[in-house]
């Protein structure tokens, strides 16, 4: 590193921001979602059996707030995971750079688009 070097501004804040947003959501809602969708509903605990029936879920996804929630949970979780995997690969010595970036952030990007298209189509 030389002091005279012209330094390029890092574009990391975009990905770090999405990572941070996803991390916050995951911390706030992740365990609850795992409990509801993975334990409570299948095992019939606490919640009425038809809580996640198709009709109810469809109505939830058709509501603008419901759409927003589902979109945020899918997209931001994916960006969070992509960023974490990208940096973990780096720490394990895989520095494929652009390739790794495309693979990890690419999956998050595609998931975001797919989630948006499907939710808007409902």
């Amino acid at each position, binding site marked *: 590193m030389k002091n005279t070097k012209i330094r390029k501004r890092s574009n990391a*804040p975009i990905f770090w921001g999405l990572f941070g947003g996803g991390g916050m959501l995951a911390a706030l809602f992740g365990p609850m979602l795992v409990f509801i969708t993975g334990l409570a509903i299948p095992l019939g605990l606490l919640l009425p059996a038809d809580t996640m029936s198709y009709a109810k879920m469809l109505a939830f996804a058709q509501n603008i707030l419901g759409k927003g929630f589902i979109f945020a949970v899918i997209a931001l979780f994916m960006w969070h995971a992509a960023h974490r995997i990208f940096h973990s690969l*780096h720490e394990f010595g895989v520095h494929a750079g652009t390739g790794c970036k495309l693979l990890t952030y690419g999956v998050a990007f595609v998931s975001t688009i797919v989630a948006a298209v499907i939710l808007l189509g409902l």
Partner: protein
Amino acid sequence: MSDTQKIIEIEVLRYNPESDQEPHSQVYKVPFTDDMSVLQGAQYIKDNFDGSLTYRWSCRMAICGSCGMMINGVPKLSCETFLRDYYPNRIRIEAMAHFPIEKDLVVDLSGFMEKLEAIQPYIIPKEPRTLEQGEYIQTPSQFAEFIQYTSCINCTLCYAACPQVGLNPDFIGPAAIALAHRYNMDSRDGGQAQRMELLASEDGVYNCSAVGYCSEVCPKHVDPGNAVNVNKIHAAKDYFLRFLSPKGGSK
């Protein structure tokens, strides 16, 4: 030497740039007493076995930051690490990780010096101030914002600890960022925008993956990991708000 004299094996990573292709280990059997530090162990080797053994030291009391080395793989100041805590096992001392070795336990710190210089570790006044205006007044809470970061002694143990420094030697690194933060947080300072150019760059804070080992090994209880991560937030704000604010730091 009495019969009860305890002897510890010290394995030293040796490297002489004039004769060695690469570093190699050498083991010395050092008689020691319970009050002897690892640094004193190295001094015993130099005085009694091999006068060419090279290492840095000065104060012997964890103030100067010169005697950092890897002790059984952990970055530590050798003056405040005691042989008795390793006995009867062998102790291995090596030059600090992530730095080029100059000779034996001495590393080349010029890269760190450049980084330190680059963050401008001094107060850059907001505006010129005349003598008639008197001294700066600082409240205890303004003082508390930066005081812990002033404790840094530039021992660079945090660089030896940081896996990201190991992967990208251009990363400005924990201590230099902690010092940038120290001056940024000072109410007398107005150099945030100038330092932001560096912190927000590709060599800047986002190289950090929040491992936190830098703060763990710090002998002065500075928390460089916190300084780095707080500045991720500052750099992100600067990134997104630079078009709104004329004070945006980077180009």
